[in-house]
């Protein structure tokens, strides 16, 4: 495989100039024109495979029969980028989607930028480069056709991969000209389509992996089996704050199929770690064997002794003392967390944003309303537990499996094992969920270290229990809101004090910052031995619901309709913003509220259902939701959720609806049912018998999704539907029960309330 470099800097790839006519000229560069060697391509689409492939750039190649392979650069965790990113390339390429085969690109930092599944950024940040890749190839194909026919390119047109010259009536397909196109000099600039000319973007296209999924074909990391591969599993400390002391492995080594039992240190202290190298348990016991079940049995039989890790527990002891506790242990328990958050955290707040004179406004207030909200730790619980395949020798590493941050994982392996980056080959499988957990590749590094030690290919497999008790949890959060009202029920000041273990959920510059004259935002954090990490819509996944519950109470206290109340604040933020760093567009915010109000029929009182509304902005997108429910026999019964979404251009509408439906249900489920609690450092939930995820019976009967159509470049969708619905849920629960819900998971409060009412 030979590559021809254009010699122009690849990193200047995204440089664009708007045209007066509404089109876009993109200055750019890179490109590799070459004939691809044989690639493994599935024949699932029952297409006749071409004899030869011509790679026009790093994103795509065209076969001599017109079949187009588009590489999807980013990891697929269920957000459907493996379909929607290639759709964007195909749009500008002007190809028949039914002639497209999609393949997952491997990690390749020389071609792609930001191969990450995180922050709902794949489509937003890939938008221009994906379009440019398609448009560049199209331009090269047209140039080649123009040369062959000796006519100007301006006289050519393309439809679904067929180039036509109207003057002469000549036409040919991309496949016929691909070989010549691969020899064409890469254009310095190409023109992108106007939105009105899209015929793939904005049309529903099915998940490209759907057939494999519904027929059970191997797709996921856990489905990896290789010749000579061993299975490895970890045994980790039973509690956060504990560490390995000793073990008696001799009998276990005799068990059938077991080949090795040893300890590893994934992250030695002198290793320079990446941000993604997170674990509370760097030192692990590893059991290796021939089959998963044999290793699982050996794990159970293995006797390991653990003891306290004084370096970890010391700091917690200090915290416990500062909260006035007499019985300090250094091992964390949920009641201890609660007292720390109530007594220690807010006392150590830092001011993050201040407008006007909030102290004075609170002093002069006719009324002050204060409410505190909290939520527990959560485990990500990807349905596919953490796992990774590794085949590592002294100077080469092949790694395959589910990872949201392959680039950082590659660097970690480079630093941990000293293997050159170019000799580390990271390939991504489709992932059985990500939700942020697979941003942190500790399991990948563990697999690499184990394979290196064994000198054999190995698949590391976490059991569900290992997965759920491994940490990297959604932090526990708390927020206290205060609002000052004058005698006429105007809000004169707003105070948010937010913190958590081990991170604050505060977004100081988000609504209602900018809408209230006197504003104070404060933040605090409490340390812990428990490792935490990003969880679907980090920080927003709690504070959105809390804020939207508090605004609901304020609307009620001031005698206003909850939507009207929000719209008034947004109107003020739009026309007369307070401060300069406000991180939202008040007009788009109001837009989703108005749309959801219309679509849910908010203003008609023709319902026996209890309704709650919320709206929130995160990951560059706006979502408003109205949830309608009843409470029957102390159980929530959710009838319908109506969602209005502004994420700009919707690339794949059916998949986008699916994402909003799922995000909404996932948000409801976690607010209602899920929690990880601790007793002396031990997670009290380790599988789905004790950790509750929402199930079929508890899901809303209907989720209706509406998108704002505004032609703005697309923004994130994987995360934005998750946070706000928790507020709509809390507000609907209030209308159903007469009680406000401040503490997640709400089901505990609902049950407590019903017990209280009965006695």
């Amino acid at each position: 495989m030979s590559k021809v470099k254009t010699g122009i800097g690849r990193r200047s790839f995204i440089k664009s100039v708007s045209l007066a006519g509404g089109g876009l000229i993109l200055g750019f560069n890179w490109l590799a024109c070459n004939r691809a060697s044989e690639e493994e391509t599935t024949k699932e689409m029952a297409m006749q495979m071409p004899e030869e492939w011509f790679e026009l750039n790093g994103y795509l190649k065209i076969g001599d029969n017109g079949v187009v392979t588009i590489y999807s650069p980013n990891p697929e965790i269920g957000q459907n980028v493996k379909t929607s990113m290639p759709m964007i390339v195909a749009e500008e390429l002007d190809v028949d989607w039914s002639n497209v085969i999609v393949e997952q690109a491997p990690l390749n930092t020389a071609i792609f930028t930001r191969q990450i599944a995180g922050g709902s950024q794949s489509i937003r940040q890939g938008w221009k480069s994906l379009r440019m890749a398609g448009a560049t190839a199209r331009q090269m194909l047209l140039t080649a056709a123009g040369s062959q026919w000796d006519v100007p390119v301006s006289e050519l047109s393309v439809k679904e991969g067929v180039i036509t010259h109207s003057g002469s009536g000549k036409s040919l397909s991309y496949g016929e000209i691909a070989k010549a196109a691969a020899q064409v000099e890469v254009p310095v600039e190409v023109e992108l389509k106007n939105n009105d000319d899209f015929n793939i973007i904005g049309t529903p296209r099915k998940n490209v992996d759907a057939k494999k999924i519904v027929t059970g074909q191997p797709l996921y990391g856990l489905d990896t089996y290789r010749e000579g591969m061993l299975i490895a599993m970890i045994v980790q400390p039973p509690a956060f704050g504990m560490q390995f002391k000793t073990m008696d492995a001799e009998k276990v080594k005799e068990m059938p199929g077991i080949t090795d039992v040893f300890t590893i240190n994934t992250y030695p202290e002198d290793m320079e770690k990446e941000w993604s190298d997170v674990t509370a348990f760097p030192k692990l016991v590893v059991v290796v064997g021939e089959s998963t079940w044999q290793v699982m049995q050996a794990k159970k039989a293995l006797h390991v002794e653990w003891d306290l890790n004084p370096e970890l527990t010391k700091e917690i002891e200090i915290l416990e003392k500062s909260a006035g506790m007499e019985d300090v242990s250094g091992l964390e328990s949920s009641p201890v967390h609660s007292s720390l958050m109530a007594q220690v955290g807010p006392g150590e707040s830092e001011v993050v944003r201040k407008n006007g004179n909030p102290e004075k406004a609170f002093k002069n207030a006719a009324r002050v309303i204060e409410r505190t909200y909290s939520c527990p730790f959560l485990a990500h619980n990807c349905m596919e537990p953490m796992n990774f395949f590794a085949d590592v020798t002294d100077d080469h590493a092949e790694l395959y499996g589910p990872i949201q941050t392959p680039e950082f994982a590659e660097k970690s392996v480079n630093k941990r094992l000293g293997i050159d980056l170019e000799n580390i080959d990271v390939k991504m499988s489709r992932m059985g969920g990500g939700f942020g957990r697979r941003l942190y590749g500790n399991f990948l590094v563990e697999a690499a270290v184990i394979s290196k030690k064994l000198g054999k290919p190995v698949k590391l497999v976490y059991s569900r229990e290992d997965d759920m008790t491994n940490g990297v949890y959604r932090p526990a959060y708390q927020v206290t809101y205060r609002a000052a009202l004058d005698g006429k029920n105007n809000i004169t000041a707003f105070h948010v004090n937010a913190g958590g273990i081990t991170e604050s959920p505060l977004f100081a510059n988000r609504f209602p910052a900018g809408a209230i004259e006197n504003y104070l935002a404060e933040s605090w954090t409490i340390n812990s031995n428990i490792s935490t990490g990003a969880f679907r819509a980090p920080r927003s996944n709690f504070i959105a619901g809390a804020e939207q519950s508090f605004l609901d109470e304020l609307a009620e206290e001031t005698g206003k309709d909850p939507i009207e109340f929000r719209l008034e604040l947004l109107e003020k933020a739009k026309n007369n913003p307070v401060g300069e760093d406000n991180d939202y567009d008040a007009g788009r915010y109001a837009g989703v509220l108005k749309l959801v109000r219309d679509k849910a029929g908010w203003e008609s009182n023709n319902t026996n259902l209890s309704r709650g509304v919320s709206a929130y902005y995160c990951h560059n997108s706006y979502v408003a939701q109205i949830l309608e429910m009843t409470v029957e026999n102390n159980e929530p019964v959710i009838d319908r959720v109506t969602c209005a979404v502004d994420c700009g251009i919707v690339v794949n509408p059916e998949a986008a609806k699916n994402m909003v439906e799922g995000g909404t249900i996932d948000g409801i489920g976690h607010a209602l049912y899920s929690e990880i609690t601790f007793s002396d450092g031990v997670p009290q939930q380790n599988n789905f018998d004790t950790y509750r995820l929402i199930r079929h019976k508890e899901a809303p009967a209907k989720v209706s999704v509406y998108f704002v159509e505004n032609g703005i470049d697309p923004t994130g969708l994987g995360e934005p539907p998750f946070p706000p619905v928790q507020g709509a849920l809390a507000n609907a629960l209030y209308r159903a029960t007469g009680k406000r819900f401040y503490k997640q998971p709400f089901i505990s409060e609902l049950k407590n309330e019903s017990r209280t009412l009965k006695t």
Partner: protein
Amino acid sequence: MAELNIKINGKDQTVDVDPSTPLLWVLRDHLKLVGTKYGCGIAQCGACTVHFNGSAVRSCQIPVSSAADNEITTIEGLSENGDHPVQQAWLEQDVPQCGYCQAGQIMSAAALLKRNPSPSDSEIENAMNGNICRCGTYTRIKAAIKSASNSQIA
């Protein structure tokens, strides 16, 4: 270890394993039928659902020894060409997000429709309640089951 004869998707297979090994791990590790997924190992999530003489069961709880002399069907054997009405309905409704739980969901749904070709909403919910989907595709799953129930299902 013992040699056991089992019949998977109509095909006789011989495996040399401890008879107490769960069917799930025999399917995956020994027969490389990886469509049946591991999710929890304690029959709480439904990802490992297969058909045992036509009924939906959690293969993580079935010792392989008790699978002998019984008809076992996995997602790979649900239809010849991936065109079982339930699979077709899943494609039509574009149900999957991450897709990991869907084989189990499909196996539960197919078993339900076999014994009850026109289930009500609550019958669907009851039959499917043991299958967790963290992505939250429940409304689409229900729509797909309803659509398959209206098609001509044997």
